[in-house]
């Protein structure tokens, strides 16, 4: 399918590659279908692009690349609603934000993706130990802004 995006122009997404949020991203309940865009091999970050709204996209990353000891408690009913038979098939992603010259990840509201069926959900972790703005990395001087 052709997906129009404000950041990347028109992109091609195979229908069976669309990620479906059964339980929506908080604050974005109208937009449940997304595609993951993978930048270069060296990048730790992906774009989660809405297939229905060209302007709507999030940077996401695998938190295990930056954080140790991060564990997400998932209830059985949450596994069921994601259609997950095993955690082996799950991928956790966190939404990335930028504050000052650092990138942070929302570890309190991780995204759990069933990599086989493409269903996803934003979980809320009740444990106050993980913050919505967990620092992932400082942006080095040379990388702060891409040239036009």
């Amino acid at each position, binding site marked *: 399918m052709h997906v129009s995006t404000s950041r990347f122009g028109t992109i091609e997404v195979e229908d069976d*590659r669309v990620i479906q949020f059964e339980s929506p991203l908080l604050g974005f309940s109208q937009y449940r279908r997304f595609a993951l865009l993978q930048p270069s*091999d060296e990048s730790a970050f992906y774009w989660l692009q809405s297939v229905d709204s060209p302007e709507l996209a999030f940077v996401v990353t695998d938190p295990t690349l930056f954080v140790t000891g991060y564990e997400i408690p998932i209830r059985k009913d949450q596994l069921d609603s994601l259609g997950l038979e095993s955690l082996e098939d799950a991928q956790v992603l966190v939404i990335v934000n930028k504050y000052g010259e650092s990138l942070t990840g929302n570890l309190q509201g991780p995204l759990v993706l069933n990599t086989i069926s493409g269903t996803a959900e934003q979980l809320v972790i009740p444990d106050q130990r993980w913050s919505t703005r967990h620092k992932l990395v400082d942006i080095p001087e040379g990388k702060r802004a891409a040239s*036009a």
Partner: protein
Amino acid sequence: MLVLSRQRDETIMIGDDIEITVVDIRGDKIRLGIEAPANVAVHRKEVYEAIRRENEQASRMAVSDYDEFRITPTSTVRKKGGLKRGSGQTRARIRSPQPKASRKRADPDERKNRTA
């Protein structure tokens, strides 16, 4: 706001599919049991608000915020790998913009798209 009084073990219906039951009352703390369909999110409001605000802020991220966010036409179809090795992964291919008709010199960065 609709205000209803309930005692322990009594229930409120919201629409046809949502039920809230007072499970326990102890001093200042009330335990509520919620039955709702899987596609309706149920959260403590203060946590919901914190996450919603963070999502909204994050949705404003620009490609220019970090050079690793940039997706180039050459990094389109991925080789095997990606999120999880060997399992279904989500991929998108970016259609390159049409090259301009008159180019004074070849762009050294142009490469043919590799297919997986």
